[in-house]
C-alpha cells in the first residue's frame, strides 16, 4: 500500500519540489547533528564537573556555581574543574571553527592551522612571552595573534605564485611549523626553571592548572570572532568552487579571504595562548564533522562542536583513564597522527578535500 502510494506520488513532484526536498533533508541532518553534539558537550561538561579524584553531587556543584561556600567543592570544583572544563569547551570551539575555516578555504584537509604552522607560531610566541619575557594576560594573546598572522602571511607570500595555492602552501607550512616548534623547544630549554607541565602546554597543549584568568580572553575572542566567521559562512561555502567561480558568483574573494584568515587566526591564537596548541584538534574537527553532517552544508558550527567534544573528552581521558595524568594534547595527538597518515595516503591517490 505504502509502496504503491509512493510510486503514484513520485511523478507528481515538480522539479522545484525535488529541489526543496533535497535542501530540507540536508539542513535537517545538520540541525540534528548540531543538537546531538551540543547535548554530548553538555553531558561531558557536567561529568567533568562531578567526577574526579573526589565525586561531588550535582547539588554541591550547583551550589558552587551559584557562589555558595561548599567545603572542599568550592576549591576543587570552583577553582580547578570549572575553569578547566570551560576552557576545554571554549578552546575546542575555537580550534574546530578556525581549523575548518582554513581547510574549507584552501580546499584541503591538510591545510589546517596546526599543520601549516599557524598554531606553532602562536605557541612559540606565547611560550617566549611567558617563559622568557615573564609577561602574562592579554599581552600574551596579542603576541600570539601577531605571530599567528605573521606566519599566515609568510606562508601565503611564499606559496603564492600567480594565484596558485594548494600543495605548495601545505609543504611550506609544514616546514615553517617544524622551525617554529624547534624555536619553542629552544625557548623552553633556555628557561632557568621550567616544569614539565608548562613545557607540554607549549609543545602539545595542556589544561593543567588552568584558571579563569586564562579562560576569559578565549571566551571574549569567541564571542567577537565566531559571528564574523558565521557572517562569512556563505562566502566560505562559495570559495569551495574555486576562486574564479566564486568571484563570478558575486563573492569578493580577496576581501572575504582576508576576513576569514584574520578571524580564524584570531580564534586559534587566543585558544593557543591559553591552552597551548592542543595537537590535531583543529585538524581533526572539520573532517569528522564533514563525515557526520554530509556534503553541501556549512561546517563551521558542527566542526566547532566536534572540536569542543574532542578537547573535553580528551582532557577527561588524559586525567583519569590512565595511571598517570596525561596532557590533553597527548591524547588528541594519538588520535590525530594516524588520521594524518591516512589523509596523506588518500590525497596521493585522489585530490583531497573535506
Amino acid at each position, binding site marked *: 500500500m505504502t509502496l504503491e502510494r509512493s510510486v503514484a506520488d513520485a511523478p507528481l513532484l515538480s*522539479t*522545484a519540489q525535488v529541489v526543496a526536498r*533535497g535542501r530540507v533533508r540536508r539542513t535537517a541532518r545538520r540541525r540534528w547533528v548540531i543538537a546531538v553534539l551540543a547535548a554530548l558537550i553538555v553531558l561531558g561538561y557536567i561529568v567533568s564537573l562531578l567526577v574526579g579524584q573526589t565525586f561531588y553531587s550535582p547539588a554541591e556543584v550547583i551550589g558552587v556555581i551559584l557562589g555558595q561556600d561548599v567545603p572542599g567543592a568550592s576549591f576543587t570544583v570552583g577553582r580547578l574543574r570549572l575553569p578547566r572544563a570551560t576552557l576545554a569547551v571554549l578552546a575546542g570551539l575555537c580550534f574546530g571553527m578556525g581549523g575548518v575555516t582554513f581547510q574549507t578555504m584552501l580546499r584541503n584537509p591538510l591545510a589546517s592551522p596546526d599543520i601549516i604552522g599557524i598554531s606553532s607560531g602562536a605557541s612559540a610566541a606565547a611560550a617566549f612571552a611567558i617563559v622568557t619575557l615573564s609577561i602574562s594576560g592579554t599581552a600574551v594573546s596579542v603576541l600570539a595573534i601577531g605571530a599567528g598572522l605573521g606566519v599566515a602571511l609568510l606562508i601565503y607570500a611564499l606559496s603564492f605564485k600567480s594565484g596558485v595555492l594548494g600543495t605548495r602552501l601545505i609543504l611550506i607550512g609544514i616546514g615553517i611549523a617544524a622551525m617554529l616548534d624547534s624555536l619553542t623547544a629552544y625557548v623552553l630549554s633556555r628557561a632557568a626553571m621550567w616544569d614539565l607541565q608548562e613545557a607540554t602546554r607549549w609543545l602539545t597543549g595542556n589544561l593543567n592548572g588552568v584558571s579563569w584568568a586564562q579562560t576569559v580572553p578565549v571566551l571574549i575572542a569567541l564571542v567577537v570572532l565566531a559571528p564574523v566567521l558565521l*557572517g562569512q559562512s556563505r562566502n566560505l561555502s562559495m570559495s*569551495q568552487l574555486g576562486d574564479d567561480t566564486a568571484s563570478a558568483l558575486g563573492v569578493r574573494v580577496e576581501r572575504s579571504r582576508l576576513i576569514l584568515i584574520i578571524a580564524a587566526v584570531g580564534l586559534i591564537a587566543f585558544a593557543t595562548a591559553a591552552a597551548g596548541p592542543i595537537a590535531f584538534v583543529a585538524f581533526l574537527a572539520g573532517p569528522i564533522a564533514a563525515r557526520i553532517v554530509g556534503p*553541501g552544508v556549512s561546517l563551521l558550527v558542527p566542526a566547532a562542536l566536534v572540536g569542543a567534544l574532542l578537547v573535553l573528552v580528551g582532557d577527561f581521558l588524559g586525567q583519569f583513564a590512565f595511571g598517570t595524568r596525561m596532557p590533553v594534547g597527548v591524547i588528541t595527538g594519538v588520535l590525530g597522527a594516524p588520521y594524518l597518515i591516512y589523509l596523506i595516503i588518500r590525497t596521493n591517490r585522489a585530490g583531497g578535500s573535506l
Partner: protein
Amino acid sequence: MTLIHTLAVENLTLGYGDRTVIEGLDLVVPAGRITAIVGANACGKSTLLRSMSRLLVPRAGQVLLDGKQVHRMPAKELARTLGLLPQSPIAPEGITVADLVGRGRNPHQRMFSRWSAEDDEAVAAALDATDTASLADRSVDELSGGQRQRVWIAMALAQQTDLLLLDEPTTFLDVSHQVEVLDLLTDLNHSRGTTIVMVLHDLNLAARYADHLIALADGRVHAVGAPHEVLTEETVQAVFGLSSRVLLDPTSGRPMMLPIGRHNVSVPV
C-alpha cells in the same frame, strides 16, 4: 529577459607579472547573439574572458557593461547580469547536483537571508532547461563528463544572467557531448535571448554555432565578424600558422576548415 545589455572592451591591456597578454584591444559583443572567441594556445582568449567578468584587473583600458566599468561595479550586482563558467570549475566532494546548481543563486541572496521559494524555482528551471532534473539528488562526483558540464551550465543558468561567458565549455567532452552542449547554449540564446560569449578550440564548431567570431592573435583582434568573413584560409594561416582549405559545410551553409599538414595530402594545394 527584455533588457538588452551591451558589453564592450576599450583599449584593454592585460597581463600577468611581466608578461603582457592582451594589448590595446577594442571590441563590442553583439547583444542577444552567440559570439565565439578563437585563436591559438596562449593567445589571450581565456585572459580576455576572465577580465570581461572582473576576474582580472586591466593594466590599461576598460571593460564596459552598459557603459559602466565592470571593475567598479558591486560584485553581486555584476553577477546578476553577467555569468561566467570557468574552464575547470571545482565541485566540492560529495555535493549533490541540486545543491551545486543552487550555488548559482548566491548573487540573488543576502548575507543571512533564508532560501526562498523563488530560489527553488530558479534552480528547478535551470535543471529542467539542461535536462538534469532527474540527476537532482545524485552526487556530482558520479556523473559523466557530459552530464557534469550540463550541471555546471545549469548552475550558471540559476544565476539568471542576461550575459553568459563560457571558457571552453566543450573541453574534455567527446564529439556528441560537444554538440549537445552547444545545442543547449543555442537553445538558451533562442528562447531567452541570452547573450553568449564562449572561447572555443574547435574552429568548425565555432563557425557552426556562433553568429559572430573573434579571432585573436598575439593579444590583438586579427579578424572579427560573421563566420564566413572570419573563417578563411588567410585567417587560419595568420592566426594558427597553418595551411588549410576552407569549404562550405553542406549541412549548415557555413564555412568549415580542413587542416593541411605535411602528410597524407594527396591533392596539391
